[in-house]
């Protein structure tokens, strides 16, 4: 059964292998030589004391460009997996009725679907896991030595370097399989699976800040920005009585006339910000991954239910 699946989807397997080599290779290149070159360029730049200095600007730009491309390539994986699963894995077989043919040939529908999902799920998990791991390590290697690296909470960086993207790729695979089974049309399933993956991803981004209790920091209005970086949940102004006043983010209060008048009028005395510091990285990543995995499992279960329901009704109408 596995050999049959591999033969049927050989082009997809080749594309996946080539994509892994290309994106994985780029990430490894970024992690090693390109990080070193960009770090050296930043050392040159920071050591500069004259008005004009020679530094390897190309190395910095090359690192930044490739980082952007590689990050978006990793983030695109769940969408491409969903598109493929919807169009090629189940949708096409039901459109051309080869699935029904297999079911009449002694392959039970449940085994048929299990065989179709097991190997792709393994390959998607392993491949996406590898890319995400490389991205994570690569970002950490550059974080302290390259001055213009993205912050850990920059959304593309946060998602491309964590297990959420692996969970999303699995959810995309099962969403595609389910869409193909329900719609029984290859291209309609492709579109539906991609949109479903996009909705799931948007949903994850929306709930993520609320998955762990944030840390509240209170700071002086003399600072340009409210205290505490990381993933912001909310920023407010506090009055002397501890009341929250939201929505009127100005600047620092010690320039006369600029923002101090506003703060006086509102009675604000300090900033208050609810945020997630770096120490919440893993709790947030793992909680969100668990939720996406739960959705993936539900999609897979639904796919099995649709298959058995369909064959039962088919055999009833045949008898």
């Amino acid at each position, binding site marked *: 059964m596995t050999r049959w699946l591999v033969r049927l989807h050989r082009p997809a397997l080749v594309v996946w292998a080539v994509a892994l080599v290309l994106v994985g290779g780029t990430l490894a290149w970024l992690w090693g030589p390109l990080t070193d070159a960009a770090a050296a360029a930043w050392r040159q730049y920071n050591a500069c004391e004259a008005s004009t200095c020679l530094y390897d600007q190309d190395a910095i730009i090359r690192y930044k460009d490739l980082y952007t491309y590689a990050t978006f390539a990793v983030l695109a994986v769940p969408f491409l997996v969903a598109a493929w699963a919807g169009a090629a894995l189940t949708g096409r077989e039901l459109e051309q009725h080869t699935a029904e043919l297999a079911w009449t040939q002694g392959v039970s529908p449940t085994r048929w679907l299990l065989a179709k999902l097991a190997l792709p799920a393994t390959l998607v998990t392993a491949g996406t896991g590898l890319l995400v791991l490389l991205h994570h390590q690569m970002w950490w290697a550059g974080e302290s030595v390259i001055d213009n690296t993205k912050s850990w909470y920059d959304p593309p960086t946060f998602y491309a370097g964590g297990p959420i993207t692996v969970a999303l790729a699995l959810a995309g695979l099962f969403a595609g399989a389910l869409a193909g089974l329900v719609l029984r049309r290859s291209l309609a399933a492709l579109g539906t699976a991609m949109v479903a993956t996009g909705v799931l991803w948007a949903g994850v981004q929306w709930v993520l800040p609320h998955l762990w209790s944030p840390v509240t920091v209170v700071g002086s209005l003399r600072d340009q920005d409210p205290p505490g970086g990381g993933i912001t949940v909310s920023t407010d102004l506090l009055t002397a009585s501890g009341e929250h006043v939201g929505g009127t983010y100005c600047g620092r209060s010690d320039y006369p006339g*600029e923002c101090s008048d506003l703060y006086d009028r509102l009675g604000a005395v300090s900033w208050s910000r609810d945020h997630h510091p770096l120490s919440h990285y893993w709790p947030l990543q793992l909680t969100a991954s668990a939720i996406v995995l739960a959705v993936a499992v539900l999609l897979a279960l639904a796919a099995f239910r649709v298959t058995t329901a369909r064959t039962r009704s088919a055999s009833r109408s045949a008898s």
Partner: protein
Amino acid sequence: MNTGRLRTVLLLHRAALVVWAAFVLGSVAYQVWLTEVTADDVHATLAACRDTPSNYCGLWAAQDYSGPMGWISTFMYYGFWAVAAWSAGALIGRELESGTARLAWTQGVTPARWLADRLTVPALVLVIGGAVFVPVFRWAWSAHRDLMGDNWGFADVFAARGPLVVAYALCALAVGTLTALLVRRALPAMAVAVAVMIVLNRYVEKHRPDLWPTVGSDGGEPPATAWQLGDGLYHPASHFWPLHLIETGIVLAVAALAVAAAFLLLRHRTQPAHPPRQESPA
């Protein structure tokens, strides 16, 4: 063109038509809501910021308006990705793959007519959608400039304020068609067509500021509405239409070439090297 065949193409692709209509009308309604309702709420919040010349005050409140406005132009601009995928996959690729195209050609519809129907109907639908969207976007985008942090030189805003956004969609339709005729299989054709359109768009967008001479090499101060390009160079707002129309012309020329190539390829494909043997009537 015969209206019966026009209706056939519309009926066959009614799902795509519904999605497109919902997208255009939904985004138009959302823009009206943002401009007429949301903007007033934001202005009320901003009123608390009076006497504060700082750009920071109310920045986050303005996000409620500027954020969705930005997404609308982004989705409309990059909609040509979906058009490329759809025309390569659903419009042409599937019919070639499943053999329904060949069937149609034996039923008295010539291949050239068949292709002309499949290009004209979606092209009309795209042009009508653009004709509804673009004027509304132009109105909504300029209604509350004080709440937006963008500028007419932003890639998506630049395209969505005129016919360029439609030109990209038409080019995607043509490129998708040509790709499907070359590859003859829906899924690979979709992937190739989207990739070709992304590369074409990146390339043209990279050279977008070079399509009309820039101003500012004399070190003059750029006006507030200028599209600044670095090194003191900029395009004043009056350069919008020349830049926009030249790029529209370039993209439409690529579309025309792709359409011509598609018809030539189809004729080459469907004209047998040896004419079919004539059966004698007897």
